[in-house]
């Protein structure tokens, strides 16, 4: 968190610089089947974020040492394209992308029915093509839809969204400027059918009341995002949601 609390990020009438209400999401568009050579894929445009996720498998677990007798392993990679941010980033993995890959894998492992595919591997590739703020949430959401597109049995789809705080006000789904000048960030991975959580991070400074509000904003937004995910899958496969 930047923590530059003195920069004015809210308008006098309580709306945000981009015109949103405090509890309003950015525009989200999801398209399924965008990587034709993959077994499942999805592109999520969320504000000016663009994440593309592709799924390969289940396939033989390789190298052999990662193989598990009783279940499938999820091989998840989150990566940012060099041109996805204002100052170019050098290609390749860094500590940040490794950590995000790991927590994303842990979230998806909680819903994918791994025991159905012993000694196998499912590859989940997440590429952030354009980054605004909240790329880990966009990537995790895209990966969930891609897994569904690949026909991988899951108990639920993970919906990921973040809330935070700027100028002392709790807001849902921070954009780039709000993220830079905000005081806190609370990304969550929510299972819309049960209300359970499979992904949770937080940094910054939130009072108990603000924390509860941010939590509730995320929970409320999850069903809205879930509808967009389901509609994207229905658009590809037909059926009425």
């Amino acid at each position: 968190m930047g923590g530059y609390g003195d920069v004015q990020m809210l308008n006098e009438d309580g709306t945000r610089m981009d015109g949103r209400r405090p509890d309003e999401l950015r525009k989200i568009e999801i398209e399924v089947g965008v990587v034709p050579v993959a077994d499942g894929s999805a592109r999520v445009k969320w504000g000016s974020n663009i994440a593309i996720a592709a799924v390969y498998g289940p396939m033989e677990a390789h190298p052999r040492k990662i193989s598990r007798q009783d279940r499938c392993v999820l091989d998840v990679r989150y990566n940012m394209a060099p041109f996805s941010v204002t100052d170019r980033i050098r290609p390749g993995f860094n500590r940040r992308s490794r950590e995000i890959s790991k927590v994303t894998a842990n979230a998806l492992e909680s819903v994918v029915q791994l025991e159905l595919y012993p000694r196998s591997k499912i590859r989940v590739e997440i590429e952030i093509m354009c980054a605004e703020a909240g790329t880990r949430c966009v990537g995790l959401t895209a990966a969930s839809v891609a897994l569904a597109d690949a026909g991988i049995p899951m108990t639920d789809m993970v919906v990921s969204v973040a809330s935070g705080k700027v100028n002392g006000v709790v807001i849902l789904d921070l954009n780039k400027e709000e993220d830079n000048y905000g005081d806190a960030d609370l990304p969550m991975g929510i299972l819309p059918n049960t209300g359970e959580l499979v992904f949770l991070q937080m940094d910054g400074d939130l009072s108990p009341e603000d924390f509860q509000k941010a939590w509730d904003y995320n929970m409320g937004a999850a069903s809205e995002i879930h509808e967009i995910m389901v509609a994207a899958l229905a658009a590809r496969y037909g059926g009425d949601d």
Partner: protein
Amino acid sequence: MSIPLVPGLLRAHLSELAERDERVDGRGRLEGRPLEVEVNPIERAEGSARVRMGDTIVYAGVKFQIMTPYSDRPDQGGLMTSAEIRPIAGRNWEPGPPSEESIELGRVVDRGIRESGCIDVNKLCILPGEKAWQVIIDLHAISDDGNLFDAFALAAIVALRNATLPAERFDVGEDERLELSCTPIMCSYHKVGGRFVYDANGEEELGGDERIHITLGDDGHVHSLQKGLRGAFTSEEFNDIMGAARARREELMQLVESLEQD
């Protein structure tokens, strides 16, 4: 990239098709796949393009950095092209440091652009000996169904032609369009079933032999050539595809010009 086993049946099938002058997907020998180009899809890049050729999909993004000119060329900026084929692009692409294939891809695209002189490196100089622009083209494959070379090269030139120098962000003047003096375009031919075809798909690449990449600039000038993989070809074969490349280059040029943004 892990090299998959080439099924003998596929090679035999491709040879049979070639005898009847047919291709696996029904195209003519010199016919390209349906082509789709999107200009500047990436808001964070200073210039970008998404190219789809059949089931092959790639992005190119242009970024600018301020560099200190090299001491032997104090009044010149720089150009760098880097291709990355991440494992998202197909089941045979693996994570890890850049593979030989992706290094070759980046370098062949780079040569076509660099040697055409379309970017005047002298104009990239801001303050001789101290400050100059470095142009960085990053090529990113999303879906590999063959002929990444042409897809990357086309994405790169479209991204460059629609790129803006972010001078205001670096506090060195006003933003301006990157000027290009010509338009290098690559056309690639693969030997499949004993004869050269244009724009091979994944199956044809897998069951094919050598490939030849030709980059042509304005007025028929040749700027880069590359022969890849195992196989030998005759002068007659080369003349045939060179003629085809000249014709195809003009078609692609019309497409590139029709995409221009204000």
